[in-house]
């Protein structure tokens, strides 16, 4: 589904990603872990086409299409979704209006008819229930005045509405208390299927207790320095990242 080959990306001439290789297949859940500043969020930004970052080398194929040639909106409509680490507040644009426009843009892209008002409201309620989001939030401006937990649940709500093939959860666990974490994780798990894939970006093992990954990668200094099964997350939790950094210096791991 997703194939990243030798991806290099920079911000203001400063290279952040230094040759990422990553393949994600249908139905898989990948976790990307790593210390602060290793390039995790840059990777997610580059994937969804944030113009702040410049891709200097490499290729990203999404369902065989060259992702780097697509606008951010087309990437979304092709089935890519990012749950933002810091969801943006948009004063004056109601959640309902925002979602209706987004859903209809997706439908137009696929050559489908626009969604009817009643179907849309039904869909909203159904998906809100998934992350236990209060219907009152629908009338409010996007993320404006939402608590930290509500913002993150709102991201997963949008994911549920748009039904992406590949979702990237960028530190969705940060700023969440245990209860909110459980709600968010259970929402994500309900959306999991053999047809779609998820990349979970996180610092901590905590979220991975709830969303079980198939594969864990460690990103350090702009490169993936280790890839293993779920047990790697536990190992990192007890040992930290230092041993990997050391090993990377000595080029000891593959």
């Amino acid at each position, binding site marked *: 589904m997703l194939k990243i080959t030798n991806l290099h990306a920079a911000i203001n001439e400063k290279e952040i990603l230094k040759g990422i290789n990553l393949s994600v297949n249908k139905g898989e859940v990948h976790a990307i872990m790593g210390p602060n500043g290793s390039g995790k969020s840059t990777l997610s930004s580059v994937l969804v086409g*944030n113009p702040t970052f410049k891709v200097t080398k490499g290729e990203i194929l999404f369902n065989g299409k060259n992702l780097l040639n697509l606008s951010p909106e087309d990437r*979304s409509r092709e089935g890519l979704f990012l749950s933002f680490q810091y969801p*943006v*507040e948009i004063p004056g*644009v109601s959640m309902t209006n*925002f979602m209706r426009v987004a859903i209809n843009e997706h439908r137009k*892209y696929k050559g489908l008819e626009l969604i009817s008002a009643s179907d849309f409201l039904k869909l909203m309620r159904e998906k809100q229930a998934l992350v236990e989001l209060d219907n009152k939030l629908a009338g409010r401006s996007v993320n404006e005045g939402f608590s930290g937990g509500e913002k993150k649940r709102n991201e997963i709500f*949008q994911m549920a509405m748009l039904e992406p093939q590949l979702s990237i959860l960028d530190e969705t666990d940060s700023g969440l208390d245990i209860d909110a974490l459980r709600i968010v994780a259970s929402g994500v798990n309900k959306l999991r299927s053999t047809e779609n894939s998820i990349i979970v970006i996180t610092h901590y093992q905590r979220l991975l207790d709830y969303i079980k990954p198939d594969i864990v990668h460690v990103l350090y200094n702009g490169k993936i320095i280790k890839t293993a099964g779920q047990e790697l997350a536990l190992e990192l939790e007890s040992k930290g990242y230092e041993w990997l950094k050391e090993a990377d210096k000595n080029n000891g791991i593959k």
Partner: protein
Amino acid sequence: MKPEQQYIDLFIEHENLIRQHSTSIMNNHRRPSLEEFQRLGFPPMKEDYACTNVNKAFAPDYGMNINRIKIPVNPYHVFCCDVPHLNAALYFTVNDSIYERKEISPNFPEGVYIGSLIKFAETHPEIAKQHYGKIAGTKNDGIIAINTMFAQDGFVVYVPQNIVLESPIQLIHINRSDVNTMSNRRILVIMEAHSQAKLLVCTHSMDKVSFISTEVIEIFANESAKFDYYDLEETSELTTRFTSLHLKQETHSQVCINGITLNNGLSRNNYHIELNGEYAENKLCGMSILDETKHLDTMTHIIHNAPHCTSNELFKNILNGHSTGAFSGKILVKKGADKTSAHLTNKNYCSTRNARMYSKPQLEIYADDVKCSHGMTTGQMDENALFYMQSRGIPYHEARTLLSIAFTADVLDNIHIEGLKERLQALIEKRFRGELAHCSDCNHNKQ
């Protein structure tokens, strides 16, 4: 020759005709206004008029319909302005003549007068005399002076004590001419104690010739009166408009003024508001969408003369192309106006590199124990918000439209006529999508 001279000559040459087609109440103001105009001239391009070249605007030769020749147009056929649920009592002016309605007049409660000032001066001479020209002073403003010299009729809304007009009044100004034309319009609103009304004024330009208008609006809101005034400009790039609104509010009165500019050429809107009675409340707001070389200059003066009054001011502009906007807002809290609450906000989007916005919010306080604020921001759209929307599949231009509409939403929230807010939202959306903003039912734009 200075641009003033042609107007002075025109006035002297045609004074008799002007008087003949007017009323003595208006005529009595003409000579003093001429003197003021000769002394003041048009305001130079400095201080209050630093951003608008008034002399240049008045320099061309415009025709005036002094002889009150009927312009062949039936506005009821041209404008079947059909705002759903608006259900307004509809009036027209063609240039500066009140269009005489042949249709049956709406059924207003007894004592209410709505229509021509000339007739009002016959039926209510004392009231007309007491109010006309009383708050729109000609001593400091050459444009008001020239308006008072030339205006031959006006539109009056008179609501006697305790009367509540449920349905709104709509006045449509039509600029209609085959040659470049000047109009001098007056509106006089007298709201007696405990009365209520809403007035919507729309201005359209029908022809592709140059129009210039001076418009003086005087509003008296007596004790506990409630009045809403909406001004919607949908003219053309060849239209120049100088409006001067003067409002006096007494105890416990509530007035909302909302000026919306969707299409224009050059506009200068002045608002002078005096809060003279305790607990008077004023809401003054406006918005504009400017592009190409359009120009809008807004000046507001809110004077708090009495304690416990509230004023809230909000102006928003969206500038594209090479358009220019100016905003100069002043709140003056006079000595003794304690417990005043006064807030002024001006926010602007400059969407293109060549668009220019000049803004000057001012606050002068001479009273104790007041709550006042003034603020201004001018900037670009939030790129993070745009990207966030794009990442959900919303195209960039659509995201910009949504943000623009959102930007103006709080100005539209101050519209209290059922149906009008929704209609304006639709017009604004169309305007942002690059379509001509006009009511789809207005035939004149379909030509």
